[in-house]
């Protein structure tokens, strides 16, 4: 079976995750979190139903809160709030895996 990155259908998002994978290997953990978080915000913007009702609670609260977290502004726009600058390997993997699973589930 192809890797999860290769299973992303959207070219731009697949490219972004290929960059995140390379950053993980290079030890650039903040970059991994940045790319993963940006992809998740992109997903929420493309699938606004993920921010409706109970779905909003599940998709916002369960987003990792390990130094960067997700908020939904008053105008309904999702945004990443940064709590710190430095991330560990396991934190970077957590953001990466959470987002890639959501993208694949959404069929992007």
């Amino acid at each position: 079976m192809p890797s999860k990155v290769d299973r992303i259908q959207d070219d731009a998002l697949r490219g972004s995750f290929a960059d995140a994978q390379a950053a993980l290997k290079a030890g650039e953990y903040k970059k991994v979190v940045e790319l993963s978080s940006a992809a998740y915000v992109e997903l929420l913007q493309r699938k606004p139903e993920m921010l409706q009702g109970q779905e909003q609670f599940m998709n916002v609260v369960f987003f990792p809160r390990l130094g960067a977290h997700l908020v939904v502004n008053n105008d309904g726009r999702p945004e990443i709030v940064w709590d710190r600058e430095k991330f560990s390997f396991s934190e970077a993997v957590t953001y990466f895996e959470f987002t890639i699973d959501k993208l694949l589930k959404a069929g992007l």
Partner: protein
Amino acid sequence: MKFGLFYEHQIPRPRDKEQWDPDAEHKMMKNALDQIELADYLGFDYIFQVEHHFLEEYSHSSAPEVFLAAASQRTKNIRLGHGITLMPPRYNHPARVAERIATLDLVSDGRVEFGTGESASEMELGGFGVRREDKKQMWEEATREVVKMMTQTPYKGIEGEHFGMPSRNVVPKPLQKPHPPLWVASSRRETTMVAARLGMGSLGFAFETPDEAKERADEYFRLVREECYPIGEAINPALAAVTILSCFEDDEEAIAKGMEGAQFFAYSLAYYYNPFTGGNHKPGQENIYKDFIEAPEDKRWGAFGDAFRGFGGFSGGAAKEEPEDEVTRALWRAAQRGGCIGSPDFVKDTLRKYEDSHLDLMIFVAQCGARSHEDVMDSIYRTGTKVIPEFKERHEKHQQWRAEQLAGVEHEINSTI
């Protein structure tokens, strides 16, 4: 597939009293040791003992290293797992963890499985002053350093993000070389993929469908082969899942004797891990068991009831909707959530599905809620004599599958699967 027992040391408060009987905790600990001795005799492969603090009724297991040391002297073969040690340094200084793991490994003749984790409940995080957003980073740093303490002579020391210490020779060293097998608690799916990349076994709950579990196993082993940067000096590729067990001669008896305990497990877990209830728990003043017993039947799986649908992973029957018949419905629900509440044939049927999805280790919660010691012993005995043997006969086939998955891996492997 191998098998283990999982101990939270649950002890519901009496419904009609403010506190437990004076001997209740003593009796529960001694009973648990009897159960583990029986499991060892019957050929169970592992026990995993949790570490929790302040989670009254749900878990009175705050010093697992002491309990496991006692178990080591009552057993001969069973592996002694921490399921898990809380690694943020405010819970346990990393040097103390290294010393305790090594000592337990020595007194048990090398039977320790070193499970690690972060903790998640507000009672514990708040009680020890651990910031939720930092706990994973703390876990990683502490785990990495504890492994060095067990293998370096002397340990070189660290000025880390979350703790620091100068160079010291941390003694004793564990009997198993380079160190006991490493595990991490993986209640979130992402953590299983962290485990793979760090060369650790994954200890998770059985939340998934067969297809999801198989996909997870395939991805886990792909990562071990292709993207593994071991946190230790040897890797422990292994997938374990926890589910609830009640195994009796027939399904009705298994439900009668086991369902309430399974529900209390889920109810009290949800109570402490839901920040709205667990975060507002009044220490020493609540009676969770009384609330549970008085709750309507449809609320007894707790606040995360819907999320627990799938706990156990696999439907026990073909029905997609809840059956109308009461017993069948209870069984169906057990299969949806707990998986292993039924006759030996029913339990085997469930376990074969896990086996087909290449699970390495199934860990049973047998002691939970207000289940009697005699019933827990009965359930363990029946599982050991009527369920496990056929899986043991097939384990060699699973080991061949693992060997294929791990072909070409250059890291040292010290898994006991």
